[in-house]
């Protein structure tokens, strides 16, 4: 069964960092530039994220994500550069198209924001096992039912695909043509939907019984298999990140006064 989570354990220091440190980084990377309102701060955090990803050997895996977001960003630049309502000063022209300073600046803001968020989230998503994050959240009092639901969401898609394969196998075993041309495969798809949904529903019921029997609802304080005592770096890094956020807030308040 394939997993849909993007996490792969590559043994780097990043994978071994505590998930909360990475959450703190996301918080800092997003809030600090926004609070401070300076464009160069975005650049700093983007560069920092890239450096972190590189040292965790994850740079290659982030390329497709960035490439995908660029297609969207380019559209944003075009639309705002050409048509933003605040547009007044022409920056440059390509033939009949006039690009305006205000619009481009605005687009740059959005672009940096998106890229910054994307990269900081990528650090978490690419280097953290979902169940690890959920487990840590549960340890801090996050609801176990919610935790189970989040984890099973990561499993639902592969499970549905598994069920789909199983039912396809059952159908073609009994003479329904499911291989070959696109038309055949398309025709075979419709009769799949209802059994897949039905079987998922039944599965859900059976899982519920399994969970009961395996003590999911037991009142005892839960324990965890993995030993994730924070590593040496976790605490100082978190403190620095949180301090940055506080500084940015103070700076913002001072600015407003």
């Amino acid at each position: 069964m394939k997993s849909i989570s993007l996490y792969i354990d590559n043994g780097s220091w990043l994978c071994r960092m505590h998930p909360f440190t990475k959450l703190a980084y996301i918080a800092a990377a997003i809030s600090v530039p926004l609070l401070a309102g300076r464009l160069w701060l975005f650049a700093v955090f983007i560069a920092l994220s890239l450096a972190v990803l590189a040292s965790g050997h994850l740079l290659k895996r982030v390329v497709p994500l960035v490439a995908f977001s660029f297609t969207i960003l380019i559209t944003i630049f075009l639309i705002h550069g050409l048509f933003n309502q605040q547009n007044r000063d022409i920056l440059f022209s390509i033939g009949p198209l006039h690009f305006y300073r205000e619009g481009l600046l605005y687009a740059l803001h959005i672009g940096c924001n998106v890229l910054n968020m994307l990269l900081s989230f990528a650090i978490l998503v690419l280097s953290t096992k979902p169940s690890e994050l959920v487990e840590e959240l549960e340890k801090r009092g996050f609801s176990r039912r919610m935790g189970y639901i989040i984890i099973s969401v990561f499993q639902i898609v592969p499970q549905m695909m598994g069920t789909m394969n199983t039912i396809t196998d059952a159908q073609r075993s009994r003479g329904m043509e499911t291989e070959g041309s696109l038309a055949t495969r398309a025709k075979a798809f419709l009769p799949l939907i209802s059994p897949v949904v039905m079987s998922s529903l039944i599965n859900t019921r059976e899982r519920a019984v399994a969970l009961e029997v395996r003590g999911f609802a037991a009142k005892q304080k839960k324990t965890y298999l993995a030993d994730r005592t924070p590593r040496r770096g976790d605490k100082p890094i978190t403190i620095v990140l949180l301090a940055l956020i506080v500084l940015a807030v103070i700076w913002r308040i001072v600015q407003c006064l």
Partner: protein
Amino acid sequence: MPVIAVENLKYRYPHAEALALDGLNFTVEKGEFIGIVGENGAGKSTLSQALIGLVPQFYKGAYGGKVLIDGRPADTTPIAELCCKVGLVFQNPFNQLSGAKDNVYEEVAFGMQNLGVPREEMHRRVENALKMLDIWQFRDRNPFDLSGGQMQRVAIASILVMEPDIMVLDEPTSQLDPQGSEEVFRTVDKLARSGITILMIEQKIEKIAAYCDRILLLHQGHQIAYDTPQKIFSRPDLEELGVRAPAFTRICRALGATLPDGSYPVTVEEAADRLQRTDALPPPAAPVPSRPVLFEIQDLTFSYNPGTQVLHGINLCLDARPTAIIGQNGAGKTTLVKLLKGLLRAEGGSIRFRGEDIAGKTVAALAAQVGYVFQNPDDQIFRYNVLDEVMFGPLNIGMDEAQAKEKSRAALAMTGLADKETSNPYDLELYERKMVAIASVLAMDPDVLILDEPTIAQDVRGRQCIAGIVRTLSEQGKLVLAILHDMDFVAECFDRVIVMAQGQVAADGTPRQVFADAEALQAARLDPPHVTQLCTRLGYEGVFLTVEEFLTACGCKE
């Protein structure tokens, strides 16, 4: 005080008319090993669920009487509390998985986490259980990517590690290879000796007879008897109740060998003590008429994941003799037949069906000739009505409505489901769903019928029904290829036996040849049939395969 006290327990499922359990009364003491036997539909699984409170707390329905677990009522104590005392291993291991863990190690630890077992202790218990059940090497695998028997081992381990005071096991060895089931029985017996109370539902009657202190015999929801194995299996009305006595008991009864108290021996040791060797010999090998070749398999290799080969160069020629494939869990039996069916594609080598390479054909194109019944019936069933389910195949391969209906009705009659036509397969019991799956392939009237562990969850009657199907189809000149873990059934119904071990063919021949090959049996973690074991112990020469054969040679009838 008894650990379990059941007083006049009655239960009816919602929307059902008949009582599933009707007036059960028994008590179990700490450290007892209790066997629960009875035909399909006798209420065994329902009883197991009543002991942990799933009945009635989860399934609702009408409930009467009392089940006391350590003095606490099972119908009102929350399951969350009962599950620390009572562990339940389900009949279908697939249903035991939490669905929250992506590897075997964490899956097995899941229950302990919920009960708050300290970390070091969890690691210790998981390691012990995985090693004991011989699945340590699969600890990093996704639990859903295991063979049927391996998954069943995971299901047992996942309850074992929770160390409940009472363990209830519902046919926990139905998909295990013979030595694997023996190990499970031995493990559970050891637990019973250490003070854990065991209740086990089983169709492997010889094992139940050998290990249990007492046996609860159920029939149509009623408690027929609760007594020692010797007393239970000496009952003259056993067959009418849908239960068959152990092979040893049947032999001793026919030969009039009794224990001092007048009951019959139930274990191989007891039987060997009471019987003398005679000069009876097994019948000479009957000439086997040659049959047309259907499959030619050459140098077949396969792997699910690159790097771990599952089949290492299989060479086989299959003709229309009824053929059984036996072998240890994970040997690659299911993989092999899925390749024959075309559901998996060979990595190397070739498979020819009637001289034509199947690599170029779609599964659907082969469907009319090669029928395959899946190991887990839930993988096969996808309609909401039994008749629709069975008619799906015939309609696909070009039969018209009337003909399809006729074939389907015939198939349902053959599998004993004639009165279940309009039921929803999802509402049926596991043994019935298994039969629906068989019927839905039978109805297509294929030339080759592949059965993947058809006897799972079947009682004596179900087995006889399947034996009948094997016989009928072979008489029609068709190939029946069945994967089995029940050696008595193999000896009884098949002319050719292929032994698989670790992705290779370890032996191939008539049952008599194969069951004499101790080395191959050991390699594939198999045991010979029960009669064979008894005769070897008594010092007979040659291999007796079935009780009937042995008794006939001794000059008497069962």
